[in-house]
């Protein structure tokens, strides 16, 4: 199996590399900056890319993963901001680039960085304990009838999970008490241990406990179902999870996973990384990873990416404002 994959990788590398960037390539080890803790979704993705780049020889210099998850990821943002002109650092970004500056007044603006590419979109799913209600309707009814509000576990405060909780409250009329944990993994085990009634984890964060039959996916917060149809548990695939809209709760949210360089790098340097991550998206490692974690594959760069970011920023800003999470 290995050899054909390598051969394909090398072939694409040859095809793409020759004319595109004769100009620049890294002369120092390249750092993938992760704005989250060890073992989280960003870290896993960074390690997948590290492995994909190394195994397929996509770059001469070694690549290292550096975890800058301090201050809920703000550490990574400030680190990228201060790295102006340094082409050996790439940030793997997610919605925190819009939300943190609003909620915690971090002096950061993603427009100061150099966009490279959007490489995936991450879903959110409403989960409950497998001993809990079986459908969204039953869940909402139970939440409304409960004496104490249902506990909703999530990652961090005033971030995507919290926003989704607020919108779930608005659309259903049920009340939740939101418990901000440090990571999605923690939110998953707390749901399994019955310390919370539900969470809105990404597919990857709840995958293992779902396969073990400990939690139940109720609906996915997207306008269409997840496309992967191979069985994940004995009976269900990702595609079997209904959308929340189908179930009568019209709440949608998708989260970007995108690569950024620090500000003020040259166009040649930017071009090198656009090609590099394009090649990463062609590897078997990337494809396996996308399916396993139920991520939406996407590859945007250049003008398309900037347009996407501007629109996404506007959406997030209005959600945050509506939820009342923007710091005065």
């Amino acid at each position, binding site marked *: 199996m290995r050899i054909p994959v390598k051969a394909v990788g090398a072939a694409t590398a040859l095809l793409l590399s020759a004319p595109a960037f004769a100009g620049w390539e890294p002369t120092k080890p390249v750092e993938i900056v992760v704005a989250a803790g060890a073992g989280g979704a960003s870290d896993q993705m960074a390690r997948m890319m590290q492995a994909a780049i190394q195994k397929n020889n996509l770059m001469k210099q070694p690549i290292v993963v550096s975890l800058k998850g*301090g*201050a809920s990821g703000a550490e990574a943002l400030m680190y990228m901001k201060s790295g102006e002109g340094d082409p050996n650092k790439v940030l793997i970004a997610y919605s925190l680039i819009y939300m943190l500056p609003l909620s915690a007044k971090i002096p950061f603006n993603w427009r100061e960085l150099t966009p490279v590419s959007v490489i995936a979109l991450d879903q959110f799913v409403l989960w409950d304990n497998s001993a809990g209600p079986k459908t969204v309707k039953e869940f909402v009814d139970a939440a409304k009838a409960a004496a104490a509000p249902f506990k909703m576990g999530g990652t961090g*405060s005033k971030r995507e999970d919290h926003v989704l909780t607020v919108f779930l409250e608005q659309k259903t009329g049920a009340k939740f008490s939101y*418990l901000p944990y440090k990571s999605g993994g923690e939110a998953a085990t707390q749901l399994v*241990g019955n310390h919370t009634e539900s969470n809105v984890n990404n597919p990857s964060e709840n*995958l*293992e406990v779902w396969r073990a039959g400990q939690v139940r996916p109720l609906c996915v917060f997207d306008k269409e179902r997840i496309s992967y149809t191979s069985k994940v548990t004995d009976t269900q695939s990702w595609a079997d999870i209904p959308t929340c809209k189908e179930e009568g709760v019209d709440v949608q949210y998708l989260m970007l996973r995108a690569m950024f360089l620090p500000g003020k790098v040259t166009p040649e340097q930017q071009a090198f990384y656009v090609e590099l991550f394009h090649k990463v998206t062609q590897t078997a490692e990337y494809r396996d990873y996308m399916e396993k974690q139920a991520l939406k594959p996407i590859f945007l760069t250049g003008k398309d990416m900037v347009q996407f970011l501007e629109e996404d920023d506007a959406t997030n800003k209005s959600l945050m404002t509506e939820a009342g999470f923007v710091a005065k």
Partner: protein
Amino acid sequence: MEAFGLLLHGFAVLLTWKTLVLMMVGLVLGIFVGVLPGLGGPNGVAILLPLTFTMDPTSAIVMLSCIYWGALFGGAITSILFNIPGEAWSVATTFDGYPMAQQGRAAEALTAAFTSSFIGSLVAVLLITFLAPMISSFALKFGPPEFFAVYLLTFCSFVGLGREAKHKTVISMSLGLLLAGVGMDTVSGQLRMTFGSAELLRGINFLVAVIGLFGISEILLTMEERLALRGHAASISLRVVLSVWKDLPKYWVTLLRSSFIGCWLGITPGGAIAASFMGYNLAKRFAKEPESFGKGRIEGVFAPETAAHASGTSALLPMLALGIPGSGTAAILLGGLMVWGLNPGPLLFVEHKDFVWGLIASMYLGNVVGLVLVLTTVPIFASILRVPFAAVAPMIVVSCAIGAYAIQNAMFDIWLMLGFGVVGYVFKKIGTPLAPFTLALVLGNRAEDAFRLSMIGSGGDLKVFWSNGLVGSITTLAIVLLCWPAIDALLGRVGWTQRTRTTSR
């Protein structure tokens, strides 16, 4: 018996020349990174992780976990010889280990540390082997109130059982809690006490503080007192090792108690640090002459090392079974597992038997080989003490600085480390204990988060800490320990503890 068969299967997976060689390489590398102060297990494993990408998962995890064991053994070396704890849980080892080294009993202290590490991890591995499925369901019982109760227990046992003046312990602990609050607050999503500085965003890293508080302040004190590191009697042989081992049975209660505490706290995620402190405090409390602790008592090395390693080892269990890393190193191993396509979780034990039992078997082998390896090299490490202080001191300062820098690749941390060096020096001069400060710095944040999450969940009702048998008994025990001096005095008046009181005077 099923576990036994599976374990044998694990050994069969393991016993190939390739794996054994990787194991030795891992152990040697681990001891090496463990000896450099501040570099420690997490960094060592992180640096070497990419090397293993091309290996098969079992070989890779065996090598990485051996680096981990090596680093654990190695970490004790710097704690004892230089008063610089490499990992959070080595802090308690310095309390008696360092005085022993100063009295020229370095070899004895090192032997004691290595042996008790071995015993602690052995007990934990046995536990993992036979109780794995039960333990993972126990760990699931821990929600925010239970976590808070455990942290409360640790804090209270410090105040109640410590021999230092209570007000000094409380002051020191409060300062630690205050500094633990710097940075992002997870519960509200707001920044606290950062004063607009980007450097303070990530908060005060515990290891940076520890390197300064213990290592740098020690250098300052030694300089002031013009003392050389006294290591003349450090020339040891098999004789010292055997004499320590001969005395082992005398300390069986301490060893057993610490193993138990270690295993119990290890499987509650994040409890490893609390374990070493608690093991030490309890050994002190139950000793016939508690005053002699902190002045170079061998039990003061046995107790925290056994507990730390029992918990360090059992902390791998929640990582494998639930995907919750119990320590920094476990978190990096977790990242590694994902790269090799193994997802930690309840199904790992079912779907990847080879891997899980290979790893457990490697814990047995790695510990035995590691113990032999470190014991045979004790004379080399102990001989560092015979080098003139003027030559060693600059090297220690440099490696402290490298260690502090390496944790987050931040120059600011080196200044922070020096600042904490001065703080540590002042604390020692005015006789304020450093341990409560360090403890509060490590656990402060988690305790606060756990408390606030409990309050959100219960709607502000404190009764949640007595809402079930588990959390209720831990909370009650914590309060009893806090009030222990008063209870002790009361019992003494009735005449119950007369005997211990007279012997202790």
